């Protein structure tokens, strides 16, 4: 259904998100850090980007900023994976241009529901 | 199961064993001769039959251990049963046969070659036909024998594969 990019430095998290989204028929690409994610986003267009916040090389917030600077990602839904303790990250994320967030820990159903919110 | 032949000279001696019913589980025995005597081995344990190629000597090995040979990349010891059992003449001709026996179980995973004079028919024997050995006589140590079977006028001595494959354990006795 949709082309989704998941960016997270945890392989098990990437696995889980990819498997969940694929089971709903989406096509998933993954990256292990912000820079890799940005590169992937540049080389092909994704309908939704889901990204963790704390990553090496380039973190989630910077990734959001960089994505928004790209012409074809101006309005693309970008979701942040946050923990309940990083409330200020939500604000910062929104300021950087993120669409919304998904709070960790989440289960597969919540993930699918949240992604469904942003798919046109 | 088609038994592979390594040497031209023994092709006449090898039986085509296609169509053997293995479900009956081990009631078939490959029989062979040592001198004038007949012996049998559980056919399921027999991997292949080869001719005689002088193996590489093992230093300070007992006389019945002729050495080791290359079996498709694996190092396999070669034991001369005629020497071990002290039966028949020990000579090596183009007709001499090496039976490659292997067994893989929870406790053992081994392959060995046994040198014999010639290979004969495949013997079908029910358990009821197998008689226990007599307590005396014979140069074959009793631990290697599982029983005797009458075939016509001959007697076939059935050998215990597991014991044979373990024989290096009791080498020190010789």
């Amino acid at each position, binding site marked *: 259904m949709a082309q989704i990019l998941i960016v997270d*430095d*945890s392989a*098990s*998290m990437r*696995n*889980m998100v990819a*498997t*969940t989204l694929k*089971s*709903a028929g989406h096509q998933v690409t993954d990256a292990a850090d912000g820079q890799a994610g940005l590169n992937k986003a540049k080389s092909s267009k994704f309908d939704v980007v889901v990204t*963790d916040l*704390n990553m090496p090389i380039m973190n989630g917030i910077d990734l959001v900023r960089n994505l*928004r600077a790209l012409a074809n990602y*101006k*309005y*693309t*839904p*970008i979701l942040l994976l946050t*923990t*309940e*303790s990083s*409330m200020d990250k*939500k*604000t910062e994320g*929104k300021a950087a*241009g993120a*669409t*919304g*967030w998904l*709070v*960790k*820990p*989440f*289960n597969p159903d919540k993930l699918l529901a949240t992604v469904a*919110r*942003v798919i*046109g | 199961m088609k038994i592979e032949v390594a040497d031209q000279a023994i092709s006449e001696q090898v039986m085509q064993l296609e169509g053997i019913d293995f479900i009956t589980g081990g009631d078939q025995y490959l029989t062979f001769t040592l001198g004038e005597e007949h012996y049998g081995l559980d056919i399921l344990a027999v991997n292949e039959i080869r001719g005689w190629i002088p*193996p*590489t*000597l*093992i*230093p*300070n*090995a007992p006389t019945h*251990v002729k*050495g*080791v*040979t*290359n079996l498709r*990349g*694996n*190092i*396999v*010891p070669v034991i001369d049963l005629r020497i071990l059992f002290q039966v028949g003449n020990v000579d090596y001709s183009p007709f001499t046969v090496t039976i490659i026996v292997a067994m893989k179980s929870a406790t053992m*995973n*081994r*392959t*060995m070659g046994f040198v014999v004079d010639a290979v004969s028919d495949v013997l079908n024997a029910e358990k009821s036909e197998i008689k226990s050995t007599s307590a005396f006589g014979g140069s074959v140590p009793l631990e290697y024998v599982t029983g005797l079977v009458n075939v016509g006028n001959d007697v076939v001595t059935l050998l215990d594969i597991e014991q044979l494959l373990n024989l*290096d*354990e009791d080498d020190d006795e010789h």
Partner: protein
Amino acid sequence: MPIDMEQFHEVFFEECFEGLDVMEQSLLIIGQSNDPEVINTIFRAAHSIKGGSGTFGFADVANFTHVLETLLDDARDGRRELNEECIELLLRSCDCLRGMFTLLQAKKTPNLDQSIELIAAFERILRAKDTTVNTAQAEAVIQTSPEGSGSMLSQNSKNDVNTSISTDNKDTKHWQITFVPEPQILLSGNEPLRLFRELADLGKLDTTANISEIPNFADLTVDECFIRWDLELRDSSASKEDILEVFDWVIDECTLNIQLINDNTSTPVEATTSEPSEAPMASSQDKLTTTDGLSQQIASTDKKMAPDVQATSSDKNSLSSSSSSIRVGVDKVDNLINLVGELVITQSMLSELGNNFDITKLEKLSHGLEQLLQNTKELQESVMRIRMLPISFAFNRFPRMIRDLALKIDKKVELVICGENTELDKTVMEQISDPLVHLVRNAIDHGIETAEERIRKGKPEQGCIRLDAYHQGGNIVIEVTDDGKGLDTTAIHHKAIEKGLIDSNEPLSENEIYDLIFQPGFSTASQVSDISGRGVGMDVVKRNIKSLGGRIVVQSKLDMGTTIRVHLPLTLAILDGQLVRIGQQVFIVPLITIVESLQVKPELVNRVSGDMLMYRLREDNVPIIYLYKEFSISADNTDIDNALLVVVESDGQKVGLLVDDLLAQQQVVIKSLESNYKRIEGISGATILGDGSVSMILDIPGLIAASFRRSKAKRQFKAA
């Protein structure tokens, strides 16, 4: 479609173990500097572990890691300094987590006692700070369980709606909503129509767009939204919270007016306006507790926790437990693919040649075969390299171990690591890990002196242990060096005599005395220290190294220090060998053992103490071994005069092997004799030569040891 989370567990556990390693290493180097980059690294590792544990259902781990994360979050925001106390607690937490994950991996339930203690200790630290809003927030979060964002926002609403309405489930509510998005709303990827779609799930939705605010066409910017909407949601059972949830992402970027117009009640309930939300932290002000500047004694818990933690840290050993997977760099895999490609090309070329072969193509065939040799060699090297990992994996456990050890026995020790990128076979590394630990423990325990003693000797107070690894001629050499008191040959000699290991009359070379420390039951420690054992260690170390096909060499100087060098083959499966012929048989001598090969000069042969023949090789007297006698085989040359001698060495002892002929040198694949037969004295394995025949590989250390035992027995016999 329920997704089975268990399929992700194994990778998660591996990640956690790695993350814990990273945390530990970073904690050890953080020292006094509190480098923000390092703190960030530690935070990220803890954060990852926490996130994953929560997601994959390991609530206890998640709760535990949460406090760590809170502390680390404070640290990386500069609100707190990570002092010794914190670092110690964090290190112990790493041990605890390792233990928990090991149990979880084995599908067992972890015991929570240790983690509960640690959590309590952390909380004490966290409370001990001044009560600022931030700390209170951290506290509040510790006490509350994770909730969705919706509920956080619901705390912001000023007036609560009547209870009767909030519990009303009938589909009779009629909501009137005014939605005025800020112009930039589209730039966050939030599309109003999508919001309405969601809203429409809650009931019957009618939307009316209000375009009164749209500027003139000329002033219109394409990515700004000037439309506002009036929405009517009828026949809905939704509560206000449900509606707010739909807008939760955009609540900051709009003005929202939600009004309930309910047919059942006569008066409309007062509207509540949701302004762009204030900091959600405000709500947790109520949760402020009364602590203030009460500094707790954390130290008292240290002693109590120490024994348990020590146990876990010694249990944890993700390296020595041989894991069934190996991480391979993509470059190595790509290289392999390329080489296989070249092999395929060579094969088809040879195949083609073989199709219409005639004698004129001989040169091409020769060239093709050479190509094949090259391809096979490269492929072999490439594949072997896949099993190679940098020795840093083995070295990495030492900073922590040395720190703990040094604290325990009150010595100051510094660890220097070199050559950590030197690669070796994964299995060899797994098996060398424990011996290395023992060597290092020994160096600290018996080698490095106490601080006072060192100062008295004019040495720097801090002792130094140096780990090094490098490649040397097809092998890897690992060095453990200490600048401690060195080996006292006299003391060792006496101890050995005392223990009856050697004869008091026997003169021993320095090397031979050093060798004594590897004898079973030997230990010169006047009291047995519990960290490096009762003399059972060194002989096991030597045995392990030998079983890997390696050797161990000792070098020492009194009061200066000791260096122990472990030589290991790079791989266990392949050997560089020298083919030698004795009679009809071809044997392989491991190249690494060969000192030199020479033609015997009769005048240098001496008969010594009875019938032992020795060859004078420069300074040494080298005993001669007649291999044909050892193996009971025939040889061409049974006479020492003008014979060929291959001088080999093991454990510092040299012998000369009498052979008939020196053949080629080649790499051979080591095949086991024991799998189908049994262990043979003097032989370490077998190989298959190019002609298909089997050739035995000589066990040089075994041969030398046997010959020395025999000669010693002879001497003793003669003496008796």
